[in-house]
């Protein structure tokens, strides 16, 4: 194809071109405005950069073709019948364009977010290298502050949140018997917002004055008079947030309106329930972080006074608004994992999920309670003292629905036939490690304890036990579990087991001791520390390098198996849920005919149990043997 035609057709090339146009536009508009107002100098690098941060991505998306259909529609041309030309992948190139197939988007999501896991992890390695000894060795204080800020922001906004969205994108429509998501074009747009956010966060290292360095929490007023790098975070979060809100809308509408006949809410797999709950959280909470960053943007760029105490602004308001999102966000980062674990445990233990309904209810309970606890991050912030007590109680109560889930999973194991392969090992690892992280969470809910350990390595330990031992373990479990379905290949079981054991052991050696040094008095977010913590920190750093190495085993396994692993059958795990009833990888439109659901999703061990059949509802008579009255012992 001639370059000129390729430049005119939607795609990455046209996207890049438009991105450049966006840059030119940013120069033009800022200079024009500044000239108009008579500000000096007319060309101000910072203002141009700020405008470009917003304009370039939008121009890029237009060039990429994310809006082509909508522009066509808006211009009032005759309605075009959907020809599905942008649906599905026939070569690897189809992964690099706007694609409306939920399976392609799912893989785009997962691969992109794992890329950011590696980058974020690599940054953690740099941090650990610096922290191996007291004093300053490799980086200066400003860079160090930038490292942990980017580390956490990437891993939260570009890894855990989107990777769950990606896995669900792939399996959720299949699970509920839908040919695609409700709004495929919107789905594609949500994906393409992500790399933009990620690249922006990384690019902040190139900004004059260094990357954003105020932690992933970006407390004002530190963030409102930081160098321009801070704006990369502020704007990137808007893109990542928009991406999650749009995906969540899509999930909710898909789940509510596109379930197969017979798939009542009480026959949905728990992964679907989990994503339903998560999406509710996202839709309701995410606007708050968007707003908090708007405030920072306005304060820093236009001199607003939201957080300027001297002019009547309120410093604590930032934290309330931020945590009203970011506490629910920790459940956004955990509930989809709960769903994954429910799928895997019941298939791998060959047993129905114990207490299915309570599992679903406890998800909803966590959603509700999740909105009532935000100020437990502010126990030492100097807010009105009385707020702490109700927040302590609601926070601690969350242990109850979470406990229901943990205990039900344990009961699911009981008297099962446990297939201890890699997904199952990670699932069991999750059970134990998340319990530990959750328990340290309950300790943190107790105000007098938090008064001492807040902002110490005890918190860092909690973070990693719930996010690494919790979320990341479920992500690993899910990726191994659905790998055959997504790629049509089997992964290497031996490498998988090596990965698990290395990760499990060195994870504990890395983050376990952090509890100790935290209690002893080592604050977080410091590049240098007192001599008394030197021993433990060296130990932690060495262990953390092994965690890094174990991740390399995983990456090798995935890449090698994807390229040359043995072909996977349609249903290697003998699972009942619908995604396993189609070929691996699934056909381009998922199903020839939408299946009919005739029973629960987890009826393992029930003789003759069926979840879905590929018949029309009229043909699919409810079969008598299916456990209509579930056995409850």
């Amino acid at each position, binding site marked *: 194809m001639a370059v000129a035609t390729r430049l005119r057709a939607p795609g990455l090339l046209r996207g890049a071109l438009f991105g450049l146009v966006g840059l030119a536009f940013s120069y033009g508009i800022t200079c024009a405005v500044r000239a108009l107002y008579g500000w000096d100098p007319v060309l101000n690098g910072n203002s141009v950069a700020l405008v470009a941060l917003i304009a370039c991505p939008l121009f890029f998306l237009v060039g990429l073709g994310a809006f082509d259909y909508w522009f066509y529609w808006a211009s009032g041309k005759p309605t075009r019948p959907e020809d599905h030309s942008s649906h599905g992948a026939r070569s690897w190139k189809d992964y690099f364009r706007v694609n409306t197939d939920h399976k392609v988007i799912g893989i785009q999501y997962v691969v992109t977010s794992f890329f950011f896991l590696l980058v974020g992890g690599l940054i953690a390695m740099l941090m650990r290298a610096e922290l191996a000894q007291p004093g300053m060795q490799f980086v200066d204080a400003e860079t160090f*502050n930038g490292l942990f800020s980017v580390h956490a922001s990437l891993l939260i906004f570009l890894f855990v949140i989107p990777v769950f969205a990606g896995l669900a994108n792939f399996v959720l429509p299949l699970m509920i018997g839908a040919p695609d998501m409700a709004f495929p074009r919107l789905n594609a747009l949500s994906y393409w917002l992500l790399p933009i956010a990620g690249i922006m966060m990384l690019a902040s290292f190139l900004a004059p004055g260094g990357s954003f360095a105020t932690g992933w929490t970006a407390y004002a007023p530190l963030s409102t008079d930081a160098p321009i790098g801070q704006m990369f975070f502020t704007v990137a979060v808007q893109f990542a947030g928009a991406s999650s809100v749009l995906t969540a809308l899509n999930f909710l509408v898909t789940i509510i309106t596109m379930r197969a006949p017979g798939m009542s809410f009480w026959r949905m797999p728990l992964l679907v329930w989990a994503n339903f709950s998560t999406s509710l959280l996202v839709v309701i909470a995410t606007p708050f972080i968007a707003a908090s960053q708007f405030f920072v943007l306005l304060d820093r760029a236009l001199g607003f006074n939201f957080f300027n105490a001297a002019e009547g602004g309120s410093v604590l308001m930032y934290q309330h608004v931020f945590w009203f999102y970011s506490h629910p966000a920790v459940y956004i980062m955990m509930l989809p994992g709960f769903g994954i674990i429910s799928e895997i445990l019941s298939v791998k233990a060959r047993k129905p999920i114990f207490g299915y309904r309570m599992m679903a209810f406890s998800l909803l309970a966590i959603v509700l309670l999740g909105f009532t606890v935000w100020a437990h991050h502010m126990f*030492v912030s100097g807010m009105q003292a009385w707020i702490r007590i109700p927040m302590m109680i609601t926070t601690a109560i969350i242990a*109850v629905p979470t406990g*229901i889930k943990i205990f039900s999973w344990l009961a699911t194991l009981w008297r099962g036939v*446990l297939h201890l392969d890699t997904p199952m090992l990670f699932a069991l690892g999750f059970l*134990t490690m998340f319990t530990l992280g959750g328990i340290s969470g*309950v300790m943190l809910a107790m105000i007098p304890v938090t008064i001492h350990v807040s902002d110490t390595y005890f918190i860092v330990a909690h973070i990693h036990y719930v996010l690494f031992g919790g979320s990341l373990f479920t992500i690993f479990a899910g990726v191994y579990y659905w790998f055959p379905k997504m790629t049509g290949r089997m992964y290497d079981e031996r490498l998988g087991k090596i990965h698990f054991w290395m990760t499990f052991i060195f994870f504990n050696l890395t983050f376990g001791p952090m509890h100790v040094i935290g209690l002893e008095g080592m604050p977080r977010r410091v590049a240098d520390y007192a001599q008394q913590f030197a021993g433990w920190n060296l130990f932690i750093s060495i262990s953390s390098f092994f965690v890094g190495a174990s991740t390399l085993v995983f990456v090798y396994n995935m890449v090698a198996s994807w390229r040359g692993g043995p072909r996977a059958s349609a249903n290697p795990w003998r699972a009942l849920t619908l995604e396993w009833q189609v070929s691996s990888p699934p056909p381009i439109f998922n199903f020839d005919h939408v299946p009919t659901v005739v029973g629960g999703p987890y009826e393992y061990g029930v003789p003759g149990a069926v979840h879905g059949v590929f018949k029309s509802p009229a043909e699919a008579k409810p079969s008598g043997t299916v456990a209509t009255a579930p056995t409850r012992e």
Partner: protein
Amino acid sequence: MLIIGAIASLIGIAVALSIDWFPVQGSSQAKKIDDLYDVLLVASVPVFVLVEVVVLYSVWKFRMRPGEEEKDGAPIHGNTMLEIIWTAIPALLIFGLCAYAYTVLVDIERKPKREMVVQVTAQQFAWSYQYKEPGRPTVNTDVLYVPKGESVRFNIKATDVIHDFWVPAFRLKIDAVPGITTHYRVTPVRKGSYAVVCAELCGLGHSTMRSTVRVVDPVTFKGWLAAQQAAKPAGATS
């Protein structure tokens, strides 16, 4: 299995309690917080051990053995009694712990009959302390002196961004917030020098924003304060 669990819990608790988790107890508040922490440990270890033992036991007892590839587990869907138990017991435990934590909180924040006030000022990246007595010049130092055994109230201010006034040996911290004054009270019980640490990210020098608190006996303290006040010309109050 119950017996294994009970034994493992006991061992766990014994180990957990025998470890010295905290820095020295420099205040009367520290003792109460440490005790609360120990109680939390005693409550948590069995929960953790329970989960651990069930997982390990299941792995050992119910793992798939050769020849069972096609076998399924028992089709148990639930058990109402069990579900009620494992909702109710954690709930009770939680309420118990919250109640205890609440009493500790009230205890460590109780207003004493008599207290002295020290003004703490945080700025990037240093601490300073002001002692104001009526009719006396204000003393401004960068080493904090407090008398042993007397209740001290710190009124904490920040001039630029948020900092956090933390003395690990006292176990207490609170943010220094621009625009408002925060406070806490402490009763030092042990003479010596302890670190003052800034615990809220405040920029470039956050990790070096350190200072020292000297707990001295009341007589020494009085002498020190008088000397400081005398060293200041009376007009130089701020």
